[in-house]
C-alpha cells in the first residue's frame, strides 16, 4: 500500500476541522487555500453555533427537536440521517470547541451563555461576542498550526485548486494547484481529495460573502464529473447593509438579542425614526408571526421585507429599498454582546446603531446547494455509520466534499447558526471516512498522469494570459451579478429566468472574446479571476436552470406563479374545505417536488435528474410558523394525516 496522503482544499471551518482530525490520526495532509487559512471566509460568521444545551434541555429541548427544527426550517428538502447525526453531535462539538479555548460568552457562574436564533423557540446558540466565526476559526487554525509544527500538515496557502486528477478508471489520484505568487502549477498526489471550499455568493456580484467565495473549486470538480445538488437553493439573508463592494451582514443575533424590524406606517415618513411613535410603526414580522416574531426563518423574513418594500411601498427610503432594524431600545449589557457587528455598521455607515435604527435590506448569503455527496445510513439509529467511506463522498471515487460546499444538512433553507455546526461536523465526521477509503487505494499515483494534468492547466492559464479580445472580464462579472441578483434571488418568475439564461449564453459567448490586461507570469491576479469567472458563469447556469425547472415554492425558492392559494373564506365550512384543498395540493406538490435537484456535467451539457429525499424519520408537514390565518391549515393537515395513519414524529 502506498503512503496515504490526503489533500484538503479549503481552510475554513470545514477544511480545518477535517485537516486537524486527520493529523491527529497521523495521516499526512496537504492543506490548500486561496488565502492564508486564518483569513478564510468563516471568519465573517457573527452570530453563533447551535446545539441543544444544559439549559434548553431543562425546558424540554432535545437533539431530536433541534433535528426537527432543522428539517422543518429546510422545508424537508434534506436527507434526514446526516441531519440527525449532526444534531446528535452538536453538544459534543460545542464542548470540544470550549476545550480548544474558544472565548465563548459566559453566564455569571462561568457556564457558556446562549442566545436565541431564527426558526426555533429555544436559546440554543453559543456565541463569542458577535464574531463567533472568527473565534471558532482561530481556535481550529491554531490546532492546525500545532500539527503543522509537528510536521503532519503542510500548508499551501495562496494556492488555487485548479481541478482533481482522475486516472483512467475515473478515480481521483491528486489535485492540480497553482501558486498564486509564482504562478507555478503542479499536481499534488493524493489518496483522496477533500473539498471544503465554501459557497458561491460571488455569482451574484455582491453578497454578504468574501471575495474568494466564487464557488470555483466546486465548479472545477463539477466539470470533472462530480454531481451538484440543489444549486437553485440560495439563501437571501434578510438583514444586510447595502455597500458598493459588499453587502455587509447584520447578523440575526441582533434580532436574537431583541432587535426589532419595522417600517413607518406612512410611506417614506420623513421624520427622524426616533420621533415616530410606536403606534405609527409597523412591526410587520411581529404582527404577522406572533409566535416567532422577528425570529422567523430567513427565507420568510426576507420575503416579508420584500413584500413590505416592493408590494406595499413602505420602504424607508424611496430610491433605495430598506427597512429599520432597531436595537436602540436594548439595554447596554445586551448591546455590548453585539459590539462586533454594531462596529461594522458604525465603521461603514458612519452612524451609531445604538442610537439610530439601522437601515437594512436582504442580500445573498449562503449556498444551501453544493456538491452531491453520499452517506451511510445506520438503520438502527436513523443516523450515520461512523467511519464509513461513503459519508461525504461524492460520486467520483476519492473526492469528498464538506462544509458549505456540499449539499447536505440545510435543504431548502438554512437556519441561522446551523452552518458553523454543519461545517465543523462534516469536517470532523469525514476524517475517519477518508482514512478508511484511502486504505483501499492501491499504488502511487502515476507520475505521468500528474504531469499531464498540470501541463493541461498550464496551457489553459497561458492562453488566458495571452488573450487579447475586446471583452473585459470584470465587466462580464458585473453584468452576471446584476442579472442574477435581479432575477434569481427572492422572487423568481419563469420568464425572467429564461431571460437570465439567454443572458448567461451571451456572457459565455463574450467570455470567449475576453482580453487580459496582464500578460505576465508573476502574481497575475487577472488570470486567476478569469479562471474563476468561467466557473461562476457555469454555476450561474446550474442555479438558474435549476430554478427554472423547479415549478413550486420551497424554502428560499419562491415562485409566486406556483404558490398554493391560501384559504381565506370567512365562512367556516368553506374555509375548512379550502384548507383541505390546500393540503391536497401540498401533498401533490411534495409528491412531485420533494426531490433534490442533481446535475451532472457532460461535455458541455447539464444533465438534470431528481433524487428522492430520505424523510424516513420526520414526515414532511406544511411550514406555517404560526402565521396568522394559517391555523386552519395546520389543523386540517393533522386531521388528514391521522386519517391516513401517518404517525406524527415523536418530538
Amino acid at each position, binding site marked *: 500500500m502506498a503512503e496515504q496522503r490526503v489533500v484538503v482544499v479549503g481552510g475554513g471551518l470545514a477544511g480545518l476541522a477535517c485537516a486537524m482530525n486527520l493529523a491527529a490520526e497521523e495521516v499526512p495532509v496537504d492543506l490548500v487555500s486561496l488565502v492564508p487559512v486564518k483569513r478564510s471566509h468563516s471568519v465573517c460568521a457573527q452570530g453563533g453555533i447551535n446545539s441543544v444545551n444544559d439549559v434548553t434541555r431543562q425546558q424540554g429541548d432535545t437533539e431530536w427537536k433541534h433535528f426537527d427544527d432543522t428539517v422543518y426550517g429546510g422545508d424537508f428538502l434534506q436527507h434526514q440521517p446526516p441531519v440527525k447525526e449532526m444534531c446528535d453531535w452538536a453538544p459534543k462539538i460545542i*464542548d470540544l470547541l470550549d476545550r480548544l479555548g474558544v472565548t465563548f460568552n459566559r453566564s455569571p457562574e462561568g457556564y457558556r451563555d446562549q442566545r436565541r436564533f431564527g426558526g426555533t423557540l429555544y436559546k440554543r446558540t453559543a456565541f463569542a461576542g458577535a464574531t463567533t466565526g472568527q473565534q471558532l476559526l482561530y481556535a481550529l487554525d491554531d490546532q492546525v498550526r500545532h500539527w503543522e509544527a509537528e510536521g503532519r500538515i503542510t500548508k499551501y496557502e495562496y494556492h488555487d485548486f485548479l481541478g482533481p486528477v482522475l486516472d483512467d478508471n475515473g478515480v481521483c489520484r491528486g489535485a492540480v494547484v497553482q501558486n498564486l505568487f509564482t504562478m507555478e502549477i503542479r499536481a499534488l498526489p493524493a489518496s483522496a481529495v477533500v473539498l471544503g471550499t465554501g459557497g458561491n455568493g460571488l455569482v451574484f456580484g455582491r453578497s454578504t460573502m468574501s471575495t474568494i467565495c466564487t464557488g470555483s473549486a466546486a465548479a472545477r470538480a463539477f466539470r470533472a464529473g462530480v454531481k451538484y445538488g440543489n444549486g437553485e437553493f440560495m439563501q437571501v439573508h434578510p438583514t444586510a447593509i447595502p455597500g458598493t463592494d459588499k453587502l455587509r451582514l447584520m447578523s440575526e443575533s441582533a434580532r436574537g438579542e431583541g432587535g426589532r424590524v419595522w417600517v413607518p406606517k406612512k410611506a417614506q415618513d420623513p421624520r427622524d425614526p426616533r420621533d415616530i411613535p410606536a403606534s405609527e410603526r409597523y412591526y410587520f414580522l411581529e404582527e404577522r408571526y406572533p409566535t416567532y416574531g422577528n425570529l422567523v426563518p430567513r427565507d420568510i423574513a426576507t420575503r416579508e421585507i420584500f413584500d413590505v418594500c416592493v408590494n406595499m411601498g413602505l420602504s424607508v427610503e424611496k430610491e433605495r429599498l430598506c427597512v429599520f432594524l432597531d436595537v436602540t431600545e436594548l439595554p447596554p449589557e445586551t448591546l455590548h454582546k453585539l459590539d462586533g457587528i454594531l462596529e461594522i455598521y458604525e465603521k461603514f455607515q458612519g452612524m451609531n446603531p445604538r442610537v439610530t435604527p439601522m437601515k437594512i435590506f436582504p442580500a445573498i448569503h449562503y449556498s444551501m446547494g453544493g456538491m452531491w455527496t453520499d452517506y451511510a445510513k445506520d438503520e438502527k439509529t436513523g443516523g450515520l455509520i461512523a467511519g464509513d467511506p461513503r459519508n461525504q463522498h461524492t460520486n467520483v471515487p476519492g473526492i469528498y466534499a464538506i462544509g458549505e460546499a456540499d449539499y447536505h444538512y440545510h435543504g431548502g433553507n438554512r437556519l441561522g447558526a446551523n452552518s458553523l455546526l454543519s461545517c465543523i461536523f462534516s469536517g*470532523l465526521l469525514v476524517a475517519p471516512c477518508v482514512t478508511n477509503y484511502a486504505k483501499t487505494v492501491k499504488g502511487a499515483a502515476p507520475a505521468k498522469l500528474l504531469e499531464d494534468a498540470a501541463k493541461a492547466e498550464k496551457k489553459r492559464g497561458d492562453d488566458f494570459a495571452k488573450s487579447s479580445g475586446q471583452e473585459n472580464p470584470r465587466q462580464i462579472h458585473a453584468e452576471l451579478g446584476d442579472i442574477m441578483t435581479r432575477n434569481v434571488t427572492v422572487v423568481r418568475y419563469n420568464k425572467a429566468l429564461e431571460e437570465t439564461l439567454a443572458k448567461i449564453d451571451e456572457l459565455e459567448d463574450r467570455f470567449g472574446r475576453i482580453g487580459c490586461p496582464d500578460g505576465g507570469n508573476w502574481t497575475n491576479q487577472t488570470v486567476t479571476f478569469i479562471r474563476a469567472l468561467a466557473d461562476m458563469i457555469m454555476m450561474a447556469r446550474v442555479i438558474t436552470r435549476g430554478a427554472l425547472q423547479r415549478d413550486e415554492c420551497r424554502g428560499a425558492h419562491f415562485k409566486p406563479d406556483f404558490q398554493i392559494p391560501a384559504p381565506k373564506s370567512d365562512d367556516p365550512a368553506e374555509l375548512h374545505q379550502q384548507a383541505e384543498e390546500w393540503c391536497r395540493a401540498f401533498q401533490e406538490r411534495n409528491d412531485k417536488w420533494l426531490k433534490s435537484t442533481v446535475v451532472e456535467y457532460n461535455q458541455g451539457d447539464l444533465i438534470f435528474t431528481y433524487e428522492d429525499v430520505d424523510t424516513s424519520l420526520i414526515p414532511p408537514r406544511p411550514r406555517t410558523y404560526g402565521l396568522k390565518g394559517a391555523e386552519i391549515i395546520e389543523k386540517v393537515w393533522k386531521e388528514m394525516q391521522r386519517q391516513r395513519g401517518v404517525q406524527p414524529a415523536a418530538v
Partner: protein
Amino acid sequence: MAQDVIVHIQRKDSPDGATYRQTFHVPYEDGMNITTVLQRISAQPVTDEGEHTAPVAYDACCLEEVCGACTMVINGHVRQACSALVDNLLKEQPEITLEPMTKFPVVRDLLVDRSRLFNALKRSKAWVSVDGYWDRGSGPLMAPRDQEEAYPLSRCMSCGCCLEACPQYNDKEDFIGPHAVSQIVLYNTVPAGQSIAPERLDVLAGPGGIAACGNAQNCVKVCPKEIPLTTSIAKAGRAATGHAIRRWFRR
C-alpha cells in the same frame, strides 16, 4: 461630489523589480472604500497619462475588517483598505496615496508576504495542546470577567498593523512581535490553555521574546481591533520575569 478620486500607488512588478509610482483617476462613488477603488482600477487599468498598465495586485478577502488580508499604508498610515472610506481619506489630504507595508517582503505592488507573522505564532505555541478530538465533556468553567479579558485578545486578525508600527520589528532583531506576545497572553489566560503555559513563557523569556520590546507603545495605537497590546506586553513582561526567576531557582 462627482469628481474623480486621484490615487497615487507605489508599485513593484516582482520582489526584485524596481519600485515606481503610478497615478489613477477613479470615478467617485458614494460610500466607496479603497478596495472598491482597487476593484475599479482592475476593471480599467489606465493611468492618468492614458497608459494601459497591468492591474494593481492587492490582497483582500472579507471586506469587513475581520480577516486582516487587506492591510496597506494608506495616506502614510497603516490600516485596512476595506474599512478605509474614501470620504474620510479625502478629509486627510486631497489625493490618496497607497503603499505596501514596509516590514514584509513585497510580492507584487500592494501585496506582501506576511509569513513571518504566522511563523511567530508557531514559535509562540499559541494553541491548546491535545492528542485528539474525541468527546471528553465540556471545558473548564470561565468567569465572565476572564472571558471579558480574553475575548478582545482573541479578535487579533493577524493583520500586521502593529508590526508595521513597531520600531523593534525589523530585519535585525528576531522579535516575535506584539501580536504574538498577545496571543501567548491569551492562551495563558484561558483555562484550556494552561497545560503548556510554561512552554509559552519560555518563548517570552527567550531570544526574540518580550525583552526585544522597547515599550514604544506604537503598536497599540494602530491596532484596528483596539487590542490592549501594551496591557498584554506588561502582563507578559511580569509573567516572563517571574517565570525566569522560578526556572533559575529550580535549576
